[in-house]
């Protein structure tokens, strides 16, 4: 179990780098979907329980995070016709380098945050922090609105990874509520992206800069 957990943690890290260095939106969305899948396997390995609600939750969140949300993003891509981001605010090579620095930072920071659980789970602290930082970075370093939603979802994945691994006593009702909120948020974001595309003929958020002081 331990070896598998470590392997999946490494997969998570690699997927983050894929997101940081990828310019094709479809590939990024695929990476996001795989990440969501890994995300749902990890807690099952960490503290496996046959509680019906745990299984329901895992199935439900896999469905929402790995299928529905990527599908919504794919639909946004198809509707707007934007397939890749050519000129991001921070270039792809530099993004990867910053990603490496962020990973080191997370490894250092997680030393201070000792979780009161086993060592296998301790490994997931830097991984989830790194995922959160990757998401935050994508939010500020990319121009296309879809990429921003992607960043938000990666960030959310990181938070979720931390939650399902460590906050095990969170009742399923709350977890489900969180998932539904995210789903609704992305749904509304998709609608707004569609409107941005129609109004401006593009989804560069640079164009959204009319409001300022």
């Amino acid at each position, binding site marked *: 179990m331990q070896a598998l957990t470590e392997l999946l943690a490494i997969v998570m890290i690699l997927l983050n780098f894929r997101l940081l260095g990828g310019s094709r939106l479809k590939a990024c969305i695929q990476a996001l979907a795989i990440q969501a899948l890994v995300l749902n396997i990890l807690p099952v390995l960490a503290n496996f329980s046959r509680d019906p609600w745990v299984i329901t939750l895992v199935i439900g969140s896999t469905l929402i995070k790995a299928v529905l949300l990527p599908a919504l993003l794919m639909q946004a891509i198809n509707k707007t016709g934007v397939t890749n981001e050519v000129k991001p605010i921070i270039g792809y090579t530099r993004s990867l380098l910053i990603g490496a620095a962020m990973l080191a930072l997370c490894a250092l920071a997680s030393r201070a945050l000792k979780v009161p659980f086993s060592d296998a789970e301790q490994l997931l602290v830097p991984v989830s922090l790194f995922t959160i930082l990757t998401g935050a970075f994508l939010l500020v370093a990319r121009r296309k609105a879809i990429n921003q939603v992607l960043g938000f979802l990666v960030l959310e994945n990181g938070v979720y990874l931390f939650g399902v691994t460590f906050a095990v006593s969170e009742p399923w009702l709350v977890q489900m509520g969180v998932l539904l909120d995210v789903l609704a948020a992305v749904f*509304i974001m998709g609608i707004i992206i569609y409107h941005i595309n129609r109004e401006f003929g593009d989804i560069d958020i640079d164009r959204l800069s009319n409001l300022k002081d």
Partner: protein
Amino acid sequence: MIWILIALPAICGVLVFLPLIGRLTRTILVGAAAAHLSLVLLIWIARMVDVTPLLATTGLPTGALSIPMEAAGGWLGIDHLSLLVLTISSLLFMGASLYSLGYLGPERKQRIKALTDELHVNNQPDAMFAACLLMFLSATTVVATARHLGILWVAVEATTLATTPLIYFHRNRHSLEAAWKYLLLCSVGIAMALLGNFFLAVATAQGSGGELELLLPELQRHAGSMSPNWLRAAFLLMLVGYGTKMGLAPMHAWLPDAHSEAPSPVSALLSGALLNCAFLAILRMLGVLDAAEMGDFGRKMLVGFGLLSMLWAAAMLIFQTDFKRMLAYSSVEHMGILALGAGIGGIAATGSMFHALNHSLTKAALFLVAGNILARYKTKNIPDVRGLLSTMRGDAVLWIAGILAITGAPPFGLFTSELMILRGIVSDGHWIIAVAFLLALAIAFASMLWTLTRMTWGKVPEGIQLQDSSIRSMFSSSVPAVLLAGVLALGIWTADPVWRVVQAAAAVIGGNGGAQ
């Protein structure tokens, strides 16, 4: 009782989409608002009136008339802090829904042109508007009554989702930009708060052997044995997360855009009701820190963010040329005052609770009046709006009164509450904070008053076509007038029940004192 408060607006929000009932959209909106408000008033009466002698005479068993203040196995409950936030939200919702009766009618004509896209499944634009408003009220009620931090989070995020379509109501580029910024920034902020929730769960696992559910009473009972590091990190994440939603600087970037681009009744609700909800979430977490005897750490953070927000907003107010943005920045400033007051504690915390009430009523009234001005002048540009007193006398008087009230001029309620906060600061000997507090207030006072004089007196500039205010209804001016009268009343003489609830609410967050 709590279930009815939550379910009533939610059910009405679904009802307005039904084809036949949909015609009654406005009736449903106002009806739900009135029912919600009267239920909240019922809770007040239940709190204030002792029914035991009445029961004795009628022969009913004791407790026959009592209203249960808890629901869902302790996940929801009404304490005094809840009651205060709930009352503010409910009152403002009543006002905003009455106001939007006049506001919605004629604007519909303009909107029909823009309504060719498929976003609206229903061809009644009012239905979407009313549904979002009602969902917002429902989510707000959950926020106010939540005792489980997880549910609290879900509800705060739900308020974001319900208000985003409202901000994009006008369907132009500006409101699109505002809605996008609002949804994205607040969602990311709130995700941080979720991480804070999880950190808190880890913190509880430290001493007690197992993790606790994030129920407030549970958390407070076991706070002593939590891991201090995780608890501190949890508070910081929640402060940043919910602080984004509350509009504390430097996380306030979405606020001026959203508040200036939303339709005026929505702006009133955003400023008056929504920001308080986020503040409530921070206060709940502060309660946990208090129980762990780490309240000082949390309070210092609140003071820091509070002062920064006040000074930042004051600086932005100086050269403001858009009167709705001016009101929005004033909201940032007042959120700073609330955070500062809660951070100082003691009488300042009581002042902070009182200030929340005063600010909400005043700011809502101001946004509604701003809506009237906007409809008449068709511009938000301050230099283009002149001669209010000659063109719309009634609204001009309300505008003057509102601006005076919001800048803390006596005899309005905000003067009293700001004075209480100042007394709290000074009596603790924080002279530097007192100077910064007064400086920010003075800058805001001067710049808003300067704007006020430019707008009210003088002649209408050439080239500005005054529109016939066809959106006016009997509520356009009377609702803000009533709200402002309330603030005036709070300043002159605070009714005893109101005062008791304010004090009890402050006691929840460790405040005390404050004679009437």
